[in-house]
């Protein structure tokens, strides 16, 4: 049985077989990482999002086979960084969290965006979050939070 080797939350791991398994299931079942959630199972809602090589990806659409050699970070791994702390504070100040189900994905989408573009315009923030659905908010408070984080975290991204 083939092994798929990748780095998960800064630790090298190897997963045996099941090349066609969804990364989401590997993370939740094999590694007990419940941060990535199943909201739709078809790459529409972003609740399952993780960072792969710093870019936001829907783990429900990622076969384990395509994870070989990648650097994968879930919310659990990201929450240990200073950038997370800045985002978390901004999300609180702007009231960007209600039920919390979209939140891990939303925060990772924010990180993915700021990593590629540390000083986004409002429109760029909206595009950066366009793959993460939120039903509790109308997104405006989340957009404000990302813009605030970009300001407060000057130099981190």
């Amino acid at each position, binding site marked *: 049985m*083939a092994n*798929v080797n990748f780095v998960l939350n800064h630790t090298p791991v190897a997963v045996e077989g*099941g*090349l*066609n*398994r*969804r990364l*989401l*299931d590997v993370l*939740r*079942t094999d590694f007990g990482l419940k941060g990535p959630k*199943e909201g739709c*199972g*078809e*790459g*529409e809602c*972003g609740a399952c*999002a993780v960072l*792969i090589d710093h*870019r*936001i*990806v*829907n783990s*429900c*659409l*990622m*076969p384990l*086979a*395509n994870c*070989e*050699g990648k650097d994968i970070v879930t919310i659990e791994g990201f929450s240990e960084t200073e950038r997370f702390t800045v985002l978390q504070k901004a999300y609180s100040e702007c009231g960007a969290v209600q039920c919390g189900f979209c939140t891990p994905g939303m925060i990772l*989408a924010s990180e*993915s*965006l700021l990593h590629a573009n540390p000083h986004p315009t409002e429109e760029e923030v*909206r*595009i*950066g979050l*366009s*793959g*993460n659905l939120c039903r509790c908010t109308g997104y405006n408070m989340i957009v404000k939070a990302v813009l605030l984080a970009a300001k407060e975290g000057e130099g981190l991204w």
Partner: protein
Amino acid sequence: MVEHRIPENLNEALKLLYHGDYQVMAGGTDLMVQRRSLSDTPLDFPKNMVYCAHLQELRGIRKEAHRVEIGAMTPLEDLLCHPEVPSLLRRAIGEMASPAIRHVATLGGNIANASPAGDTLPVLYLLDAWAELRSLAGSRMILIRDLITGPRALKIHPEEMLTKIGIPEMHFSHETFVKVGGRQADAISKVSLAAAADIVEGKVSDLRIAFGAVAPTVVRDETLEGAWEGATLSELKVGVWRLLDMYVPLIRPIDDQRSGKHYRHQVALNLLRDFIESLSEPTSEPGR
């Protein structure tokens, strides 16, 4: 027992395709939805799978003489900000799906999926893009509009893989890409238009029109386009209704859960009319 293989290089992938019955997976964003199973149960693939998204030989964007070549496994997001990628294609990609999808989905995958609503396809048809198909036996080039014969139907042999897309360099004085979805982002196309014109000294030197999501494959008719070559800009604009009438029988959309045929048909024509009516004597800035 379905086999799942990760080849080390392109040659190994081609060997698998040659000797066995394999389906190529690129980014997976279409296939993983189509073969969707319950959470934590394996996806049901009818054929053996060979995963090729990681193959470096198939990634990258290269400017060659009078064309740009794009590796079939290049993530769409990389195309989005690359200056050598034609602006029309960048526009189409920018309207596709979401960042998370674009980080993983590929141009090769979008072509191979050959959905009637595939976002890049109208642009690829319009720009006379071609695909390189390779097998152990050799390689051949085929225009993408000849490669796709219907929804999910390609003129590709089982041992061939789509490895590269080439887009000839073109200049237009005016171009547009409009995608109509159910919302501003992350939507499947209800109808789309890619259109381009090169107006030189008040005359139509090149006119190209391609519709997406209104027929089993992209609607483009070079004969119709050619009928307007040489016309003056004013003749074209005055004759816009005649032009639209020519497209009426070609635009054959369906009713489905996203939209209706009347809407798709009318909007397709509206978009074309709007493009023609917006054409003006070009100033020193090409493109739109």
